[in-house]
């Protein structure tokens, strides 16, 4: 750049380089600060891309990625003919949609109900209790559920008292998906209500006053002030949860399922885990994983595009 410059600007070249060196001297710490994070980012977000090669290989762990034979799209061709592939994709989608939709519905409902409570102590106590399960791992919650829903568990104890036959909830293909949704609601409904509660406190009280002066009763105030007040939050959560349409909850399913309920409960993530890390079918597992990542990326992108377009949400 400098060598092509005209004679008049050549005299400025030393000044420019010294400006660069002062910039560097002053800003070097910024680059040093970036370094640890950047190395980790490259190692764990970019380096894994090489693993994708497995999806196009007949991977042999003894030979490694470099020497394993390439097979092109063979793994995918094989995959798409597997009946269980379509089964797990369908299961994943059904479970994820059922969970997301019912969670948001319950969260809005819970927030609206909590918002009507005038007693601060009562409100705080309920909030404290319903947020708690969010902070427990699915190992703990899975252990709780396995016992509660087991043949000698509390739920069947109660059913027996009521004179009904015991139900094997976690060993039944009719019950497994409802159990997943209900236990997920049990864990997350309270926590998900927080964002709506925050939106509700943001509604200007003047609006309620104006509405009641205009003769609106409480129900009408909810309909015309409260609900429009949280409309944008609901919309935002809805578009952003598009990205989780393939996220049926790996932690939860892995800790609750068993081979009996594979027909209704096996999902992409659990299948990838079993194929790859249990049976060492790395190429097949990576192909399923790549399929999942690609669909997820498209859904996330659509979600953020819609959020950017129709709501005020900006990530940075």
């Amino acid at each position: 750049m400098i060598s092509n410059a005209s004679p008049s600007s050549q005299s400025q070249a030393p000044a420019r380089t010294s400006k660069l060196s002062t910039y560097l001297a002053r800003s070097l710490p910024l680059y040093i600060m970036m370094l640890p994070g950047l190395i980790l980012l490259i190692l764990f977000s970019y380096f894994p891309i090489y693993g994708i090669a497995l999806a196009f290989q007949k991977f042999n762990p003894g030979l490694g990625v470099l020497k394993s034979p390439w097979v092109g799209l063979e793994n995918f061709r094989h995959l798409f003919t597997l009946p269980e592939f379509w089964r797990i994709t369908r299961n994943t989608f059904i479970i994820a949609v059922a969970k997301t939709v019912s969670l948001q519905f319950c969260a809005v409902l819970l927030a609206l109900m909590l918002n009507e409570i005038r007693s601060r102590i009562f409100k705080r106590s309920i909030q404290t209790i319903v947020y708690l399960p969010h902070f427990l791992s699915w190992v703990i919650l899975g252990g709780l559920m396995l016992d509660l829903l087991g043949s000698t568990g509390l739920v069947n104890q109660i059913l027996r008292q009521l004179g009904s036959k015991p139900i094997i909830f976690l060993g039944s293909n009719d019950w497994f998906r409802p159990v997943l949704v209900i236990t997920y609601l049990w864990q997350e409904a309270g926590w998900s209500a927080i964002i709506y509660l925050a939106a509700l406190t943001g509604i200007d009280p003047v609006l309620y006053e104006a509405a009641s002066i205009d003769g609106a009763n409480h129900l009408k105030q909810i309909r015309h002030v409260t609900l429009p007040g949280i409309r944008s939050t609901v919309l935002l959560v809805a578009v952003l949860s598009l990205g989780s349409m393939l996220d049926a909850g790996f932690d939860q399913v892995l800790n609750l399922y068993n081979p009996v309920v594979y027909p209704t409960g096996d999902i992409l993530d659990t299948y990838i885990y079993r194929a790859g890390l249990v049976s060492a079918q790395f190429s097949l597992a990576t192909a399923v994983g790549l399929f999942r990542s690609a669909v997820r990326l498209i859904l996330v992108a659509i979600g953020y595009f819609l959020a950017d377009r129709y709501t005020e949400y900006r990530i940075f």
Partner: protein
Amino acid sequence: MIEDKSWGWRMFKILNYFILSFVGLICILPLAHFLAVSFSDRAATVGGLVTLWPIRFTTASYELVLQAPLFYRSLIVSAQRILFGVSLQMVVTILMAYPLSKTAKRFKGRNVFMWLLLIGLFTDWGIIPWWLVIRSLGLMNSIWALIIPPALLPYNVILMMNFFREIPQELDDAARIDGASHWKRLFQIYVPLSIPAIATLTLFSVVFHWNAWFDGMVLIYDVNKLPLQTFLRSVVIGLDTSNLALQAGSGQFLLYSDRSIRAASIFLSIIPVLLLYPFLQRYFVTGIRLGSIKG
């Protein structure tokens, strides 16, 4: 707000209190039931007699779990991963968030780094590539496999960066004119002013490390190096209490059952979360605010 005193509204309010109390009970009863099971004796737990109150109160199950060397060892591993994992994560997050909070004019290349981070945030290559990378880095079967990979969470960096950006630019300018270096400005202006955000992220990071179990399951082979939740999984999900029960002395076997052992180990592992919970609650609001800041 003018109180609505109509009959229908009053009915609704009573119903509302009633339903919310019911929801609260549903959330707390399973835990209460488990607490009762963990303190009951063998005959009561095996026979399914326990509801919400211990039957023939005994602490045998707790004694058994607390005496098991494997439980202890896993507790130490978890403590180590929290100590090192959380501090490393916070240091990396703060150090990376500071340069990114600068404008592209002040910090050349900022937008390139930002895009790298955002792509990292939005892509997920799945567990097989993740597992292969950790294996090829030689981290397998080491506690570092549990500490280093989650040290950078792009989302946390963005939250921290957004918080740094809220700090008045004048403070930074004044310190810069006085000749304060970037290090000095970060640690004497930005960090002290961001204590609520740092506390929030730290608390959530502690809970994250305490609750993580899958990484221990697929990255650690040695049963002596498992973190608590992974070990707990073999007990409560794998239904294998032999690791715990083998340690038992004779004559005690009438007091505990597999069920009460599982309940006791579940409860012991909930205690740290319960202790942190009041602090977590204090910072929920900060957490929400962090997530909703717009640049």
